[in-house]
């Protein structure tokens, strides 16, 4: 099965390490809470995607395989957003 080269695996590793350092750095910068939450979630999702796409080889899988993995997450993600938003809304009432 043709997958990425060892060199590209090491490049992804370097990027993941850099993004982890960035995550920790962002926490110590003391930016506003809302900005911090957005930045950290954005960085975490990017890193998780990189692991799935490159290391778990979703990149070289077929469209059907990608859809089989991705589609089941749609509704749970929606529920999560609604439930957490509802809890936060009640908190600020």
């Amino acid at each position: 099965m043709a997958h990425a080269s060892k060199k590209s695996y090491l490049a992804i590793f370097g990027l993941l390490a850099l993004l982890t350092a960035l995550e920790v750095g962002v926490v110590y910068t003391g930016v506003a809470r809302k900005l911090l939450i957005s930045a950290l979630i954005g960085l975490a999702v990017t890193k998780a995607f990189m692991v799935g796409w490159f290391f778990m080889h979703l990149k070289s899988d077929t469209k059907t395989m990608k859809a089989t993995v991705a589609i089941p997450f749609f509704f749970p993600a929606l529920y999560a957003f609604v439930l957490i938003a509802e809890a936060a809304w009640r908190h600020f009432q």
Partner: protein
Amino acid sequence: MSASVAAQHEDPPDPHGHGGGKVLPADEYGKATNGKIAMWMFLVSDAFSFGGLLLAYGILRSGAHTWHHKFGELGWKYATEPKLGINFTAGLTFLLICSSVTMVLAYAAAVEKNRKQTLLFLGLTILGGWMFLAGQYHEYWGIWHPGLTKEGLILGRSAYASTFYVVTSFHGLHVFTGTMYLLVIFLRTAAGKTDENSIELVGLFWHFVDLIWILVFTFIYLL
């Protein structure tokens, strides 16, 4: 039963030209083996377990008036709860990323039929997993300084403590399972009983453990 309905119940011709009754995945899945599709199905269902736990954490935290309890504050009669150590856990995160790259290099070596390198990288991945578990033990119970349990973060005492222990220990259980799975594959590879597909399957599980930790690190430690 009509002839056309009866025809639908007969065994379909093997689209891949293999005999022996072996059922292969549909063409839409390309070269993916049954094992790979099954592993992905398991990982998706396992992700829902983590999703459920993180969702409970999100709801409890976003609705909580106080998350870290301080002695005497709002009638809290216990010792002030410790904050989680970000720097140490960032080190554990880096360790898991390192083990993920050794895992993918083990797979690359297996594709090249290089058994010696496959074993080397599998061994390094196992070492990374054990070091992570040792780090988690230190975080909970302490090796060179008191762990969280001795500093006042007690399971069942607060939502902060309970969600922390439940989520991180559930992940730790996955790391332990992963290292055991890797060990079995390491021994089978040494005996020449594996191929690149076996390495790819254990790799999928191990990368999943890393992927989940990336999210746990952000939600539980950094936010």
